[in-house]
């Protein structure tokens, strides 16, 4: 790795600014905030997957001592002055279900009481009469004409520029359809020597941040709606709450303390509309805190059925890729259309296939809503195309690494959307993981004979994701007369270390030690608009905004210092808290001295502000073609060595190598943390995490029945590698790192298992039972 002689803070693993607080248990999380007279809300949830709400009888519940109010969807609908419908893409969800419920768990009524116990007791006394409606659970069935309709009407929300094109198509459960058309796949299949076609599935899963959703709302003496909430999208919450209550944006204030993580589950509206409504009608502070079982009924990772067909020539050239994917978005769209858009157009992978046809459908069903999950759908789709790449490689006897390198995109190559690639590190990532795993010359999968004992295999996979574009990050930077710096940013610190990374960027630009920088937590009264803290976008977007804002301050300092130093501002340098003439370090002033010259009073400050906005060329509706579909790409690769016991189907991951192209490591240790953490989280999703859903009923909605990876699931050897292909517009070349480690783990493991025992499991998670069944089937054939 090159040594950055020019940077003093960026590129070093400075300790985290939140460290001391976190090891002493002192950070305040949303659920720790209490206000005088605070009430507690609780939610009654539908017991039907799809039903008309005929009647809600609240009388017995209202009599419970301590209960302040009981409300139903009808109450919400009849409250004057509010629009109860919300959602980031379609305004399809109501504060409480109005007229009909759409999934088991759909909030149908709520109680607000002096304490949680009274609220929970009252819930049980609410009587709801339902008239069941036909329900649909499978996304493929739901997409067919004649399927029961989950929503009769769709109202586009227009909250985000990248979703401005969604249409209100009625009479179907398909709420979004992403198409890509490149070349002519039919002609290519006709001349292909081989066609390989398989279907791969991913189940619904839980984000499972250890901090469940929690929101506190207080309407103050000025009628302002103050919200403390565990969210990754404070600016969006402000926008949507203002829309619901029909108030100007400055009447809503959203504050986000440290987050007990999110992984995508805490994006867009969750508890905020209902909590705000309860505060609105009671005029008291109200908190709603979800239990773990309720988490399972709030948001999930998308289940996907992905068919992938590749046309291949005898020499191994893949000339066509057709993929048709059905995304189960559940009862409310949430951000499903964006998930399907972003993962949809990358469904043919980081490859230069000449002919591509992609159809990705976002489909309503009567299941728990699905939303963004670390990777925005890309891991599900990588699972399909990277498994299929191995199918091709093994059938043609080509080294899977070689096959990938032969087709992988290089700088300047066109993506399937027609966008020329800028800063693409997929080949570098593949080569690095291959080297680290000790990639062997290609060999056929082993045959399993009775008593062959545990067998080892290696596999690899890669993937690419496009950052959300267009999007916006605003930042304000204050430099105070003593040289201390305050950064105002709406990026949420949810464990990823953004507070530290953003402080590093401010410190670098302003020539101060990082200890002198304080990053304000999101508070929409003082921190500017930011699209979301998600999608690996913050370092790039917020980093650039902070860099520009700091640059304005630096310019002001230089202009003031230039006069005193009798130099040109362009010849000045700001480093180690001093401004001096380049090449003559003794000719300089300290930062406080410059402030004294410029402003003359104690305690003054200089302010810089910048809004960083990226632009895309919208994908053509019919062909998905665009000269610029995204601001930047980030790719990753994974290699795994596994040992499979053919007697039991048990898999041990002996070694896992995860590489991510981060562009530039702002904080190298944090990059490793992100890559490792993402990879280990994805191991859980590979082997044992899935929500078991029976006719819309989640049957394992608790950690007793839904297991997460523990220390014991960490492979004995795990290696995280930062690949650094700089981006010309990234801050110092940086791109993003939060999701890259999730992209290709599942496929790499599946490919390693195939390499070990010659069977391929196509339905996640890869359980011992499925491996045994596959081995048995292979024996019989």
């Amino acid at each position, binding site marked *: 790795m090159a040594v950055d002689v020019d940077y003093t803070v960026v590129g070093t693993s400075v*300790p*985290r600014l939140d*460290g*001391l*607080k*976190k*090891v*002493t*248990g*002192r*950070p305040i*999380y949303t*659920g*720790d905030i*209490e206000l005088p007279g*605070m009430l*507690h809300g609780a939610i009654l949830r539908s017991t039907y997957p799809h039903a008309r709400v005929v009647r809600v009888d609240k009388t017995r519940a209202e009599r*419970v*001592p*301590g209960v302040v109010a009981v409300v139903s969807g009808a109450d919400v609908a009849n409250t004057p002055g509010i629009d109860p419908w919300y959602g980031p893409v379609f305004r399809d969800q109501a504060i409480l279900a109005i007229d009909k419920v759409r999934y088991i768990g759909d909030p149908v009524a709520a109680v607000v009481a*002096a*304490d*949680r*116990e*009274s609220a*929970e*007791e009252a819930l049980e006394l609410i009587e709801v009469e339902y008239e069941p409606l036909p329900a649909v659970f499978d996304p493929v069935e739901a997409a067919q004409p004649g399927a029961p309709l989950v929503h009769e009407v769709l109202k586009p929300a227009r909250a985000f520029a990248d979703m401005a094109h969604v249409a209100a198509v009625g009479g179907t459960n398909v709420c979004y359809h992403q198409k890509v058309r490149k070349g002519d796949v039919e002609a290519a299949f006709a001349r292909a020597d081989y066609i390989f076609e398989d279907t791969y599935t991913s189940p619904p899963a839980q984000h499972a*941040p*250890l*901090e*469940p959703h929690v929101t506190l709302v207080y309407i103050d003496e000025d009628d302002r709606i103050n919200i403390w909430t565990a969210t990754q999208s404070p600016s969006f919450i402000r926008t949507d709450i203002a829309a619901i209550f029909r108030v100007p944006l400055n009447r809503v204030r959203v504050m986000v303390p*440290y*987050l*007990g*993580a999110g*992984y995508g589950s805490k994006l867009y509206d969750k508890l905020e509309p209902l909590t705000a409504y309860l505060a609105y009608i009671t005029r008291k502070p109200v908190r709603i805190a979800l*239990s*773990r079982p309720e988490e399972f009924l709030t948001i999930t990772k998308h289940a996907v059925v992905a068919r992938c067909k590749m046309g291949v020539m005898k020499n191994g050239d893949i000339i066509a890729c057709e993929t048709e994917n059905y995304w189960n978005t559940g009862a409310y769209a949430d951000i499903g259309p964006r998930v399907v858009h972003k993962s949809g157009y990358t469904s043919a992978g980081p490859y230069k296939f000449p002919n591509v046809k992609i159809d990705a459908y976002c489909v309503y069903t009567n299941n728990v809503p699905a939303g963004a999950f670390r990777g925005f759908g890309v891991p599900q789709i990588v699972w399909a195309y990277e498994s299929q790449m191995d199918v091709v490689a093994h059938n043609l006897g080509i080294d899977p690494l070689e096959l990938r390198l032969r087709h992988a995109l290089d700088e300047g190559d066109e993506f399937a959307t027609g966008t020329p690639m800028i800063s693409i590190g997929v080949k570098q990532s593949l080569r690095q993981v291959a080297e680290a795993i000790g990639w062997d010359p290609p060999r056929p999968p082993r045959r399993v004979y009775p008593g062959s004992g545990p067998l080892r295999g290696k596999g690899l996979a890669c993937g690419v994701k496009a950052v959300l574009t267009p999007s916006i990050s605003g930042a304000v930077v204050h430099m105070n007369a003593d040289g201390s710096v305050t950064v105002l940013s709406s990026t949420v610190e*949810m*464990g*990823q*270390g953004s507070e530290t990374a953003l402080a590093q960027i401010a410190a670098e630009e302003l020539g101060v030690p990082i200890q002198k920088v304080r990053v304000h937590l999101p508070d929409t009264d003082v921190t500017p608009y930011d699209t979301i803290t998600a999608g690996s976008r913050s370092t790039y977007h917020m980093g650039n905004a902070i860099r520009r804002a700091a640059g304005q301050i630096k310019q002001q300092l230089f202009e003031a210092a230039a006069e005193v130093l009798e130099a040109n501002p362009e010849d000045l340098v700001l480093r180690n808290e001093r401004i001096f003439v380049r090449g003559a370090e003794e000719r300089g002033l300290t930062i406080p001295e410059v402030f004294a010259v410029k402003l003359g009073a104690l305690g003054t400050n200089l302010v810089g502000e910048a809004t960083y906005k990226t632009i895309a060329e919208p994908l053509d509706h019919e062909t998905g073609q665009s000269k610029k579909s995204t601001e930047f790409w980030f790719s990753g690769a994974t290699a795994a060595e596994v040992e499979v016991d053919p007697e039991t189907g048990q898999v041990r991951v002996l070694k896992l190598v995860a590489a991510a192209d981060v562009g530039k490591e702002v904080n190298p*240790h944090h990059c490793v*943390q992100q890559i*490792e*953490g*993402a*990879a*280990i*989280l994805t191991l859980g999703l590979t082997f044992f995490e899935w929500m078991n859903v029976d006719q819309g009923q989640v049957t394992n909605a*608790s*950690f*007793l029945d839904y297991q*997460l*990876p*523990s*220390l*014991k699931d*960490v492979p004995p050897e*795990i290696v995280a590698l930062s690949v650094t292909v700089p981006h010309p517009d990234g801050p110092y070349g940086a791109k993003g790192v939060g999701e890259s480690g999730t992209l290709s783990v599942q496929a790499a493991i599946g490919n390693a298992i195939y390499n070990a025992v010659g069977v391929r499991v196509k339905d996640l998670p890869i359980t011992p039972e499925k491996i045994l069944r596959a081995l048995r089937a292979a024996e019989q054939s």
Partner: protein
Amino acid sequence: MGGSSAAALAADHPLGSGGDVKRTITLIVNGVERQLEVQDHWLLSDVLREQLKLYSVREGCGTAVCGSCTVLLDGRPIASCLTLAARLDGRRIETVEGLSQGERLHPIQEAFLEERAFQCGYCTPGYIMAVKGLLDENPDPSEEELLDYLAGNYCRCAGYPDILRAVNSSRLKLARQRAAAGPPTGS
């Protein structure tokens, strides 16, 4: 399950449900004797958070699986989210708030800080207490003992490699501390 109410709020609303009978118990919390009025079904995690404002005790699952609410009861880690406070009269409770001495961190906290064995920080207090339980009980655990003991503490950010390094570093720090203190006297 059934969460409990804030005692202060329950006191404001004496007719609140869940039975009003309270008993007085004494807990020695982080070395300080505390008298508490609790109902029989109140959970220790709620009592520590709501009455004693020990917010490091965090509920993650309510089923004693995730480990976020881990505290030490007479030196042994327990899941405070499934422990009834009323049954603990006279017992000793430790939370992470009691570990550091002023600005001086406990060696385990030091190790977690140095190894950056935290990301979102939600699991960290429970993790640190579980590690203390482990190393107090078994100062030199084997890898297998260590993994078995700590498998009940989830870190969903999956900072496990950092956590493992922190546990090993904690072990060494505590060993050095013991060596510096000289041979144990008495038994």
